[in-house]
């Protein structure tokens, strides 16, 4: 398995400073607070969690769009944790990102051809003609037509824009793509087209996806392994089938029970949580979930549980799994 390892993150902390009077840092938003994970070639790692749990921040930290305060990120054994932008540039080729909102992530004043060739110019690839050939090849791979290079983003539909976003990521022939909610803004019929495209591209190119989403059904369909985040922590990680069939962490169980099922008459037991998400400015001591956990004990309130393996590949951070 180890030769398939692309990226390894150890104990990542990404904190954002909160500034008070005179720009002094008075506190930190602990967006990611000690997460370790490994990504392997050819797999899809689904990262789920609710708004504000730090899943996007983690994704951005892993490909060094953000610099972590603590921890280590290894790309194929190379430590990229504190590399400068210049040092990172050649490595960026290998890790790319697809964003949720393709409209705001494409420059509205450039046409599609320019948006795509810009990527190659930054990477200082080939001459103009070679670059254009490659752009045309990628466009057809993602199901767009050559004539689309003269269009502007606003002339395309949501699905087509997401295809452009994907084409831009694929241009540098990356090994790892961070997909941050790539299908959340799309309609049902368009969503299934993009999901199929993502899976086909993965098969052809042995890509690794970090698939960030709040939609459990889509993650179930896409992912090989799934990690669940809560308040900056990874609380459970397991192969997809294992996680969806035998969730161990109480938070995972709550999340799964809330997912609506498109079959009338199947009313499942829904676990309703009390209270609201604690603020990441002052996370609770002990287990981050203990304030809302139905199984919390005195131990949970004081000691943070370790993230440990209970069965083959199934990790959970809970005192009473």
């Amino acid at each position, binding site marked *: 398995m180890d030769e398939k390892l692309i990226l390894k993150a150890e104990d990542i902390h990404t904190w954002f400073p909160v500034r008070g009077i005179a720009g002094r840092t008075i506190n930190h938003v602990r967006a990611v607070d000690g997460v370790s994970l490994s990504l392997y070639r050819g797999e899809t790692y689904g990262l789920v969690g*609710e*708004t504000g749990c730090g899943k996007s921040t983690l994704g951005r930290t892993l490909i060094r769009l953000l610099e972590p305060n603590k921890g280590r990120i290894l790309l194929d054994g190379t430590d990229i944790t504190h590399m400068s932008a210049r040092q990172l540039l050649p490595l960026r080729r290998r890790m790319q990102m697809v964003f949720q909102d393709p409209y705001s992530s494409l420059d509205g004043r450039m046409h599609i051809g320019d948006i795509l060739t810009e990527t190659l110019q930054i990477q200082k690839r080939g001459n103009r003609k070679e670059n254009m050939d490659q752009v045309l090849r990628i466009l057809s791979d993602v199901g767009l037509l050559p004539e689309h290079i003269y269009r502007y983003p606003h002339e395309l*539909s*949501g*699905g087509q824009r997401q295809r452009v976003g994907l084409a831009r990521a694929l241009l540098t022939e990356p090994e790892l793509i961070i997909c941050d909610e790539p299908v959340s803004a799309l*309609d*049902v*019929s*368009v*969503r*299934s*087209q993009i*999901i*199929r495209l993502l899976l086909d591209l993965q098969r052809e190119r042995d890509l690794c996806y970090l698939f960030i989403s*709040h939609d*459990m*059904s*889509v993650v*179930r*369909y*896409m992912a090989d392994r799934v990690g669940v985040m809560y308040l900056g922590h990874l609380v459970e990680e397991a192969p*997809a*089938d294992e996680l*969806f069939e035998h969730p161990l962490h109480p938070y995972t169980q*709550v*999340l*799964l*029970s*809330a*997912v*609506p*099922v*498109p*079959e*009338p*008459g*199947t*009313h499942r037991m*829904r676990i*309703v*949580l009390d209270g*609201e*998400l604690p603020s990441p400015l002052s996370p609770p001591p002990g287990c981050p979930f203990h304030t809302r956990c139905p199984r919390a004990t005195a131990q949970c309130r004081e000691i943070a549980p370790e993230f440990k393996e209970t069965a083959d590949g199934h990790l959970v951070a809970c005192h009473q799994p």
Partner: protein
Amino acid sequence: MAEHLLELNNLTTGFHTERGDAIAVQGVSFHVDAGEIIALVGESGCGKSVTSQSIMRLYDEKRTAWYEGEVLFEGRNLLALPEKEMRQIRGGQIAMVFQDSLSSLNPVFTCGDQIMESIRIHQHLPKNEARKNAVEMLRLVGIPDPEERFSQYPHELSGGMRQRVMIACALSCHPKLLIADEPTTALDVTIQAQIMELIVKLNKELNMGVILITHDLSVVAETCSRVAVMYLGQVVEEADVAALYSHPCHPYTKGLLKSIPRVSGGRREELYIIEGTVPLLSQIPKGCRFCPRCPYAIPACSEQSPELIAMPSGHKVRCLRAAELQEEV
């Protein structure tokens, strides 16, 4: 036959645009009874929101829009009412909850003020009584410490709490009909579950009719009794929830249902794809509107516009081949 709470007869809504009239909703008919939740389902641009806003007559009839057909609310045609009477109905007897609670609530007034406003306008109550009612409303929608939340501003609340305030606003004048336009789309699953549960509970307790507008077929399955599926401004299929999910008749409904991934499923089955994209309103295809994307299309489909026909099974379907397709599962 008993009178329905709300009945739409051939509602058509068009907009004047620079390139001529665009007809966003064409010939939509359905009805809602008291105590029932019916869903309007469809993708972006299918006309589900326009339908709901036409019921409330929210478009500027002098300049931008025109309506045809009938919207009968307790037997009165809303489209023929003078504006003054319409104002009594809006927010009074028919209320609406919108998707984006942050932009629908006024940021410079407290939540309590906004609930009180509609109570005072519609029920002409003095301030202290209106306040009492508003706090009661906040309690009804499950907001903890309603007294305290009353004087908070919308930005101080979480998304789920704001959506509850919106519902409290809508319910404050005891409407007979609630229109919920994508009430949970911007919310997380756990919060979505809470809000849907609240809407179902209030629907039973207050015996209101509810029109739930959504693109999420899973939410519909768990809450509604009847569903109307819309495509490009027309209702293409209407049926009871159970019948629609077990025997979808229209090819579009079939496709939609097959293209949702399921939590219980895994990835063994290929996800179905509806080919192509929704055409623009200015390029509506001839004949059946779904014909260019339909896997079951026959030559007649591009010639003849099908009507919404009632089937023996209780479905209403707009498809030439509905009878044959029903056999197929």
